């Protein structure tokens, strides 16, 4: 991965406490998996930044290398890679995502 993309991704991850690399936008997700994670965050009323990888091929490919994770969406909380769709859904159902948000001092509904 070229250094400028790596730096760009690392800045996005640093500047946004909760950021979701996704296909489409939180308002109009363009893939079922991105929709699912976006809905979990909306349900928890977490303030998050959606990064539409469909708008930038370098970020779309770069984030896969950056996280060593082959699929989109990808969720980062305070610089930590949390997971893709299956993991986020499972964590949410088990209440682990809520615990993670709390640990990271991110406000969400009911907290």
């Amino acid at each position: 991965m070229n250094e400028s993309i790596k730096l760009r991704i690392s800045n996005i991850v640093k500047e946004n406490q909760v950021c979701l690399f996704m296909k489409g936008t939180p308002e109009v997700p363009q893939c079922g998996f991105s929709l699912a994670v976006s809905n979990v965050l909306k349900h928890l009323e977490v303030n998050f930044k959606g990064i539409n990888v469909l708008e930038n091929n370098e970020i779309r490919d770069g984030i896969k290398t950056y996280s060593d994770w082959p699929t989109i969406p990808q969720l980062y909380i305070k610089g930590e890679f949390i997971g893709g769709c299956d993991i986020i859904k499972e964590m949410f159902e088990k209440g682990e995502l809520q615990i993670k948000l709390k640990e990271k001092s991110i406000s969400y509904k009911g907290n």
Partner: protein
Amino acid sequence: MPLKSDEIKKLIIESIPDAEIIIEDLAGDNNHYSATIKSKVFSGKSKIDQHKMVYKALKGKMGNELHALSLNTMEI
């Protein structure tokens, strides 16, 4: 090109020989699957690492030939 569920199973078994795998073809199109995988190798690993082990077994096919594989990994 879509990947048949038998091929997915074969690739996973090559890397994780004790894996018990159940694969569902969600849309009947050889392109949207859901897999439940149980193995001893997942023991003590985070979910991220467990899923990465499966992705590695699929040798770069995930996100390419294989568009959608929903994963549920479990330790035995």
